[in-house]
């Protein structure tokens, strides 16, 4: 019996040693591969292009579908563990966080850079280095119901005049609608009146020390908005969906929204046209640009191969055209942009021409909620525009100062 017991113990020990070896995945001995994480919409387009690259460069491109909203979060976890992609597609405002954590490799476009829209390159530039190869540029446009507003308003004063006329005559309950806690949609109005978030300098980027939330222009813009609400031309209490519901039911004549909204507005059956966002006293409205592009992981096994893929294969007329045709978004590749004929995309393009990259600096996180709250307090008529914006600016400055104190504490 005792003898047998040791046999059994030996079996256990052998199992413990043999099984892991047997279960271990065989070392991959196949050829070179390049792994790309891409969202559902764009995965088929890239899958279609992969054989061309394999043919010409002898490298297999593996496309892995990841939901657009999950790419960043999963990348943050997977990349340091050595399980992330070589390349992924994402939005330019991710780079601040990813670069701070050392997860992105800069991209060297060389002479190819001049083929991209300068604003798109600016958007992916962080502290003087480029961290993404842009491929589409989106911004907001001005939606109007042409049965109510036949001609596109030139200025925000026109928007007010048209609203007064329509609401006064009882044609529609509201002239212009906007969601009440959303800095993104109010930014073009603010810039048309001369307001800004952070001072922007071409080629350098945003200066977090110069907060413009309470600048004269910003206050003027909020006063305009305040007046619209006070006179019943713009309702309070709207979120994104209710703003759209009012426009789509014909209860509101005008709104500002993005290319992503075209599909739902068309589906509603309401007649609509898109034009450039109206000017203000300080000049043209400057919406935020939302730029999407390819980024390279700092943990890629073969960063040079990833750069060759982007620089020599993706940054060509053929690939950029295929990406555009697969999913029509305004391209960041200038030669293709010039050939676009879709009137809706052209209208968005005109707004985008004056656009500014959405700040990717970490300080921006301090801005959104304070700014949104100020907007909400003004629209809800709880605070005067100047007071609301000054409070917000104070909150933002305090947050930025505290953040900087924290980072310099050690030295």
């Amino acid at each position: 019996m005792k003898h047998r017991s040791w046999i059994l113990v030996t079996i256990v020990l052998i199992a413990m040693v043999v099984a892991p070896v047997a279960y271990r995945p065989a070392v991959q001995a196949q050829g070179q591969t390049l792994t790309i994480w891409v969202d559902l919409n764009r995965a088929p387009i890239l899958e279609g292009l992969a054989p061309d690259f394999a043919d010409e460069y002898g490298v297999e491109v593996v496309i892995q579908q990841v939901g657009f909203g999950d790419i960043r979060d999963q990348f943050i976890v997977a990349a340091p563990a050595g399980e992330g992609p070589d390349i992924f597609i994402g939005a330019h405002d991710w780079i601040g966080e990813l670069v701070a954590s050392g997860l992105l490799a800069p991209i060297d476009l060389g002479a190819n850079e001049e083929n991209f829209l300068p604003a798109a390159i600016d958007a992916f530039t962080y502290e003087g280095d480029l961290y993404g190869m842009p491929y589409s540029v989106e911004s907001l446009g001005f939606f109007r119901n042409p049965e109510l507003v036949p001609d596109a308003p030139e200025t925000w004063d026109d928007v007010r005049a048209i609203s007064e006329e329509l609401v006064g005559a009882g044609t529609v309950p509201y002239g212009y609608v906007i969601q009440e806690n959303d800095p993104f949609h109010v930014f073009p109005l603010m810039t048309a009146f001369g307001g800004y978030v952070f001072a922007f300098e071409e080629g350098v980027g945003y200066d977090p020390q110069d907060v413009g939330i309470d600048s004269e222009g910003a206050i003027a813009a909020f006063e305009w908005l305040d007046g619209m609400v006070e006179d019943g031309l713009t309702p309070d209490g709207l979120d994104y969906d209710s703003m759209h519901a009012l426009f789509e039911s014909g209860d509101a004549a005008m709104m500002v929204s993005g290319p992503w909204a075209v599909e739902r507005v068309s589906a509603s059956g309401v007649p609509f046209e898109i034009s450039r966002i109206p000017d203000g006293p300080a000049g043209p409205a400057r919406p935020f640009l939302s730029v999407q592009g390819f980024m390279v992981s700092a943990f890629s096994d073969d960063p040079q191969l990833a750069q060759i893929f982007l620089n020599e294969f993706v940054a060509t007329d053929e690939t950029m055209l295929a990406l555009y045709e697969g999913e029509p978004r305004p391209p960041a590749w200038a030669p293709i942009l010039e050939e676009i004929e879709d009137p809706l995309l052209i209208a968005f393009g005109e707004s985008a021409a004056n656009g500014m990259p959405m700040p990717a600096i970490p300080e921006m996180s301090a801005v959104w909620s304070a700014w949104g709250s100020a907007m909400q307090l003004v629209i809800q008529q709880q605070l005067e525009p100047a007071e609301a914006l000054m409070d917000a600016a104070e909150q933002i400055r305090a947050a930025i100062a505290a953040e900087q104190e924290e980072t310099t504490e050690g030295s």
Partner: protein
Amino acid sequence: MNAVKKTGRGSDGPLALFSGSVTGSLLLLGGLALIDAFALWFLIRLIDDRVWFLALAVLVVTIGVNAAFLSRKLYPFRWFSPGLSLMVLMVAYPTLFTIYTAFTNYSTGNLLNKTQVIERIETKPEYRYLPDGEQYYDAIPFRNEDGKYLLWLVGRSDRQAYIVTEDDEIEPVTPEQAGIEGVEWVEDGDPPIRVEGYEYLPPEDAAAVLAERDTLDYGYPVGEVSIRLIDGPAEVPAGYALDPGTLLFVDNTGRRPKEYQAYLFRAADGDDLLLYAVDGRDTLLARPDGRVVINGQPYTIGGYRMLSNRERTAITQVLPTLTFGERDDPIYIDPFSASRAGRFRPRFLYDERQDAFVEQETGAIYRPVKGTFTLDRASVSVEAADELPATLSPGYYVVVGLDNFERLLTDQRLRGPFVRVFLWTIAHAFLTVLLTFSLGLALALLLNDRLIPARKIWRSLILIPYAIPAFISTLVWRGLLNPRLGLINDTLERIVGAGNAPGWYSDPMWAKIGILLIQLWLGFPYMMLICTGALQSIPQDMYEAAQVDGANAFQRFRHLTLPLLLVAVGPLLIASFAYNFNNFTVIELFNEGGPPIANSSVPAGHTDILITYTYEQAFGSGGGTNYAFASAITLVIFLLVAAITIFNYRFTRSWEETSRNV
């Protein structure tokens, strides 16, 4: 067997396997071996990934399971070892990990470990410098038959072409090397070039010369492709038009064939033909000796041949490891670029001896301070220190002690509206429990009455809100309460007049009422359920006795039902309170804590509870994630809830005493 009998239970050593049948023991051992094998495989993977904590947890569980099955003393543990294992892995490990994280700086900017960070800082292209007077080049690799490399370099600043090999120094390119000797460009000329020793053949003459040869093959030097001059429509790929009056040259090397306008030159002293072709900015020059120059760049230089795309991608890992030019000051290929090369040097190098980074130009020292390499200002002059970055990015994660808790207590931004938020958190949890319990109890009492018809149907219907997931109900309520489009305000406005309906999103009081309304909807079926159960357990004879004593209905409820009920449901009410203390979902989905508090020092809302408020501070608006700080907050909130719960249990104990008196 004899040994067991002789020495009695437990003295058979640690092995307890053999009390049963042999088959049973074998099955047991087989199962155990499988578990061990899997655990070991998992452990190897975890250690490989350097996930020490989880590895430790798995190790503890595995040893525990083995001990439980192999040791007689631990025999009772066999039966709950699966549950115990799961508890260690799913509850104890995450809890301990959260506590550990609360004492680190694990957050955006400090996500990597120290080894990874040192490697990143040393290789980061952003942390590089070019010595004065140097420039970056675009490099195109060539290779000879011995496997040695040559780089064709074009300066990014001076736009001049250079050549460098692994052995020889960088030299400007000569016309012979470039394959353009004797060629002279003529602006707007037709033909656009003149070539020494060659005469231009106008299209008619060229056609006559070509008529004698079917095709003109230059024996294109890169093996995989061929470039041919095409002199008839039959050779032109579909989709390309051919103007019969001109010569066309089709390049099939790219993804799509490319057409060039072609010019032919004949050597003055023979039949040799030289071809020059233009398409927009692209030019091609093919010499009779086999040398081809595309856009001013040759395909062969001496014995070196330019690499095809396939050859080039195959050596992306090799090329950056080579050195070109001078041995002691070489040119490198940049691994982080498709083509960049130059005499770049890492700016910061890690010195293991002092555990610090040294800046290579000034000798400045960067020492680790709480996971970030920080400039030691004493190591350089003041002027130099001002020019240098104060810290190196990224940082790594490291234990920082009580920093996160200190911040929680001292941060002005968090303290601002803290009291207000804290009071509402308690009020919210308390009122939610009170309201749901009251309604649930009322309905339970009502439906407990045998006089109510179809009680089972009512009960089932009332349970519906409980069956629908909370986040769906909350979103439905969000729509119902929408002040412009929602059904509720639409109806109310008809009664109280337009503009007088409550502002569920804008008025602080109504927003709070709205949340309590949603909580009531979500919570009362549960309360009804537990009250119904508890009510049915109260013996009927007590009521009969009370009735005999002359107690009226209210007195019976007050002195009999309620105390007896609370004994049963009291702990559940406390659990419900603790749950609602942290009920993130409902508030975040309904209005994200809005409406905002005016004149607040930090953005905060009137309906923010502790968890939504701190979430906004720690993770708010996508500016990065501070896991460590969030863990610290979680710990503190846990302590708060625990304190309140213990306090509440004191009350239940008093209820128990009440029940003893009944």
